[in-house]
């Protein structure tokens, strides 16, 4: 162990020590315009991968007493285009396609014939607000079973009357709290909340819970992921 060294040697040691910090400079890649987008995409992708790992199939989202539910007037209506895409309820069907044994058009009554689930859960928006609401509908998993869906497929993809579209990983689609929702606050869905049928997923952020459903497809390949996802939002965003 040396305790006396000359100035030149000290400088050399300092240079070597400084060089050990060089990897920090690699973060500068985020400042290079050409690399920024792909790096952030990879980072978001890693987050989504971790999110899928954190998701527990058997874990139920907290449910709340009726006294904790916010009145429907306080349930903010969010849309990206129109509150009411003018769905004709008499002619409405859910068109099912993809890896299913019974594709075709399903009427609301057929979905309502499945066991009904009623729960009060928290709706969380990506923007940061949340509201506890009351929801009723059929389990998506029951519907997938009824249409003979291949549940080893990776995704459930939906399209909406307002041209919105979304996709769900199969694990979340099969979660017991994931609903094909046709009631809010014990009343048929109002138009601004997505009548006649919407997704309601207590384990997902709000933008995944598409309204005014018209089409449902079980698939392994997604051409498009979702309206917001295709503009840069997280694809998985599980809560």
């Amino acid at each position, binding site marked *: 162990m040396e305790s*006396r060294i*000359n100035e030149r040697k000290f400088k050399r040691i300092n240079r070597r020590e400084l060089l050990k910090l060089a990897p920090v400079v690699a973060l500068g890649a985020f400042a290079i315009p050409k690399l920024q987008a792909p790096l952030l995409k990879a980072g978001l992708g890693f987050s989504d991968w971790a999110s899928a790992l954190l998701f527990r199939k058997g874990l139920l989202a907290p449910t709340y007493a009726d006294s904790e539910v916010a009145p429907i007037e306080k349930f903010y209506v969010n849309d990206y285009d129109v509150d009411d895409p003018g769905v004709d309820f008499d002619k409405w069907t859910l068109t099912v396609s993809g890896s299913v044994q019974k594709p075709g058009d399903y009427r609301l009554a057929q979905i309502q014939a499945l066991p009904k689930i009623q729960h009060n859960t928290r709706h969380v928006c990506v923007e940061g607000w949340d509201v506890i609401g009351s929801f009723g509908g059929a389990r998506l998993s029951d519907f997938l079973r009824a249409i003979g869906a291949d549940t080893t497929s990776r995704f459930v993809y939906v399209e909406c009357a307002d041209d919105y579209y979304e996709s769900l990983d199969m694990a979340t689609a099969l979660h017991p709290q994931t609903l094909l929702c046709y009631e809010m606050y014990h009343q048929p869905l109002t138009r601004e909340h997505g009548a006649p049928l919407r997704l309601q997923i207590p384990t997902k952020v709000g933008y995944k819970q598409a309204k005014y459903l018209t089409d449902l497809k079980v698939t392994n390949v997604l051409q498009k992921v979702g309206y917001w996802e295709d503009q*840069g939002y997280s694809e998985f965003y599980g809560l």
Partner: protein
Amino acid sequence: MLEAVIEIESAKSDETTPAVYEHPWPVRFCHWLNAVALFVMVGSGLQIFRAFPSFGAKVPQKNLLDWPKSLAIGGWLGGALQWHLTFMWIYIATGLFYLGYQIFSGNYRQILFTTRDVPGVWPMVRHYFFFGPKPPSREPYNPLQKQAYTSAIILGILSVLTGLVIWKPVQFSWLAWLMGGFQMARLWHFLVMWAILLFIFGHLVMVVLHGWNNFVSMLTGWKKNPDYTPR
């Protein structure tokens, strides 16, 4: 190998300059990684906050403050989330590596505030704020500094825990409950950020006051002419 305390011989005269090795490379490495990560986390976090600058109901929405877009990172909510959800991994990984290193190397003693440091607090307060004499020291960090750095680490841990609740309020619903719910977790996350910013402000003021040799020690590990008598 060098001793932790050395004398540097001048090339021109017989004089020597004392130098002490204060910061092992993992500490310096984490410090600078964390500096970049925090910058991005705060900037993008403020842009995310702009999407709903409130901590209560959405209807009716009462905004707390309108943070300027020019002082935020990401441009819009989706962009800011990309930055936030990317750099949170760098932030967390840096924090875990740092904590692991400090614990296993024993280097944490340098900055961990313990009951032994309590008697030294008042003399330091007198020195900093009331022109009292500088208490003699044999360590790089005085009791007030230890208090500040220990607090900063606790704030770092809290920032991650509150953030986890906002990101995954269902998977970590017990933590959300512990924090008083989803909106409260957002509020804690926000307050922890301001506490960290306050620490950084004080930290930067002290760096300027302590001069160049002190700053260099966080780059090379070595501090020339330390203002304490090293053990």
